[in-house]
């Protein structure tokens, strides 16, 4: 081996030393967290609530900078997360069902396989609700009414391609009924339309169903278990309809992140969700916590993809 060869070998050795020590130092600079939704929404608030606690449990004085990149129902932000450098310095909020719906309904520059999943924090099951003074008392009664008079009930949803819209489409197929869907701009507007008597039913998330207890009646929740804040409300499964749907709020980065970085982040998440201080904040905000580690979270996303892809084949929500 000549001199330059030795130098090259030494250089490579040094470089690898440098790079391992750099990895051990992660994060050396602020980490960007892309939130594909507007400030103030559920995805935004959840991310801004958890990340200070993740930072607290990270070594090296990590800082996370939240960047909102709203647009196209999350598509813009998801694209950016998926296409970013997988070095651990760009992370993002990865919400289902939007992250699996978009690649199904159109040509996107990302699919669910373009992400590294770190941890899921919350699962917010959707519920079907009527106004408190509605004659419809139960889900069975709603379905009877719809079978007797198809299309007689109008549902206000958060918009075409929203979780609400999808949930009701799936309900129509599972129960064999027809509901007219009126896509409002947001679930808040749909709720007001319900309270004003302009529509007959709407889909609400857990925070709303708890806060609006006196004004609306939740007929059933699309969860695999009853919710502690509304113990009397049955799940669809209780009533024989296999319908699970809602928004899961988890975090990850682009596919191909270094394993030690992913592990460091996953450990910090696990520590953060067990932090009593965080749990107090989460309870105050009534965050529907559902911690899943990287494996469980990935499996959950696959599962959601399966259910939604099947729905698209039967009855696409965008025609």
């Amino acid at each position, binding site marked *: 081996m000549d001199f330059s060869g030795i130098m090259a070998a030494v250089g490579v050795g040094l470089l690898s030393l440098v790079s391992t020590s750099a990895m051990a130092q992660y994060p050396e600079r602020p980490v960007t967290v892309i939130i594909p939704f507007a400030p103030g929404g559920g995805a935004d608030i959840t991310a*801004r609530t958890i990340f200070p606690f993740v930072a607290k449990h990270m070594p090296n004085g990590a800082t996370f900078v939240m960047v909102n*990149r709203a647009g196209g129902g999350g598509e*813009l932000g998801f694209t950016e997360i998926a296409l970013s450098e997988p070095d651990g310095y760009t992370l993002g909020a990865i919400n289902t069902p939007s992250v699996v719906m978009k690649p199904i309904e159109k040509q996107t520059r990302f699919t669910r396989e373009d992400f590294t999943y770190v941890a899921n924090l919350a699962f917010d099951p959707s519920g079907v609700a009527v106004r408190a003074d509605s004659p419809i008392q139960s889900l069975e009664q709603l379905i009877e009414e719809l079978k007797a008079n198809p299309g007689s009930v109008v549902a206000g949803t958060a918009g*075409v391609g929203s979780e609400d819209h999808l949930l009701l489409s799936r309900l129509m197929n599972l129960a064999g009924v027809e509901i*007219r869907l*009126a896509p409002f701009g947001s679930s*808040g507007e749909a709720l007001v*339309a319900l309270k004003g008597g302009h529509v007959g039913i709407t889909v609400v998330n857990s925070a709303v169903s708890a*806060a609006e207890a006196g004004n609306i009646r939740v007929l059933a929740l699309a969860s695999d278990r009853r919710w502690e804040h509304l113990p009397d409300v049955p799940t669809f499964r209780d009533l024989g309809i296999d319908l699970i749907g809602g928004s899961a709020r988890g975090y990850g980065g682009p596919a191909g992140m270094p394993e030690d970085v992913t592990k460091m982040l996953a450990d910090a998440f696990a520590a953060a969700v067990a932090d009593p201080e965080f749990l107090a904040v989460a309870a105050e905000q009534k965050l529907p916590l559902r911690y899943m580690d990287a494996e469980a979270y990935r499996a959950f996303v696959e599962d959601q993809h399966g259910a939604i892809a099947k729905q698209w084949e039967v009855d696409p929500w*965008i025609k």
Partner: protein
Amino acid sequence: MDILSALINAVPDILAWQVVLAMVAGLIGGIVLGAIPGLGAPMGIAMLIPLTYGMEPLVALGMLAGVHNGASFGGAIPAVLLRIPGTTSAIFTTLDGYPLAQKGKAGAAVWLAAVSSAVGGVLSALSLIILAPMLMLVTLAFGPSEIFWVTVFGLASVSILLGNRPGKGVIAAAVGLLISLVGQDRISGQERFTFGQIELLNGPLVVAVLTGIYALPPAWNMIEKALSAKFAQSKIEKPEKGLWTYRQLIPVWLKSSLIGIVVGVLPGSSGGSSSAIAYNETKRASKHPEEFGHGSVEGLAAAEAGNNADNAAAMIPALTLGVPGSGVAALMLGALLIHGLHPGPELFQNAPDVVYGYMLQMLVTSALILPFGGYFATKIFAKALMIPATMLGILIIAVTVLGIYTVNNSMFDVYLLLGSGVLGYFMEKLRYPPAPLVLGLVLGSVAEYNLRLAMIISNDDWTVLFSRPISLIILALIVVVIGLPVGLKLLAQRKRATAR
């Protein structure tokens, strides 16, 4: 009365020194933000929300209330001094504020804008405090068909804006309507005219288009004319007395504030429309309509009272129903949620100290516009005029670009801004009025969408549009607003004919 006692209980909370400091800092910061073209209340509040997370709710909300009211007024300062609306709602302030400044009355004009903003803001905050609990039922009655008619009313009010070039105004409004078609169709989910751009899925960013059309052409002009004498003339002196009297303006303030409050309360019809309607109504009712656009104190008072009056009012449906009456109100809802406060009647029961405290803060920060906006801000911004026009022009473009970039951290929006700036430049050269375009852009998609929603809900039964009392009232107003200019013109012709 428990509302009264809740209010009194909230007073000591908002007088804590941290809260007072937050309100004042927010107000001054808001005025500066509002005065910088392209920035404004929505951006300031969006930037501050993450910072307020660790604060006490009333400190956070006090600061945000200050930014909200401060920014609404701050837009008037460059509107008067430079003919650049600092915020979109200050467009109508330029019409009379700038001519006043040209006549050497810039100081008095800014002071009048401050007084008018304070009056509008205070009345709006009072309406929030009094009406928030009561307005729930009225707002609930507004379904898609009613909102459709409200937006048609807004579009019909273009007829008043047209002035003596109706053809060009109608073309501008039609261009606005065309632009409003861009984006994903909210009923079918199909993409329209997006050319595969993800950034266009939600429609073009309205703030970027508005800022481009309104803020950039003056900056182009500044650079084009280099040190044009036109811009150097607006100097600030001590506000001179005698430009206006309280007796003359009190009716204008009251009417404009009322208009601002009503516009603020209605969801989906806010922003510049309150000052537009207030300005046009004042012009219609004025004894001296010919002065409007040439330095009318009534016009300036109407525009500023109207735009500050929709601030607190927009929070009425936001706090009670969770439906924001404006974009800023939507952000404020987010701020409330961060502090664990969910809107709705429960909010008034569970956290009365915060809700009533916040409502009082909207009142206090409105009143604080007088000392901090009138005197202090005017002094600071007088300095801005000593900057050479070329530099100021470049500075405006730079700050505007930066501001629009930060909305979504998107370069696409910057290109949209610059493109709109070019459009605005040619519109100005060819004497096309920008206001109808803006109304078409903002209201077009809302009108289309609510009409189609109403049709879905009624199963394509068109009579639903004409069968409800609120719809009929708005319909009558539309007939009046369209018929009025035509009727007045016919009347004038007949008079001339009989005189001959």
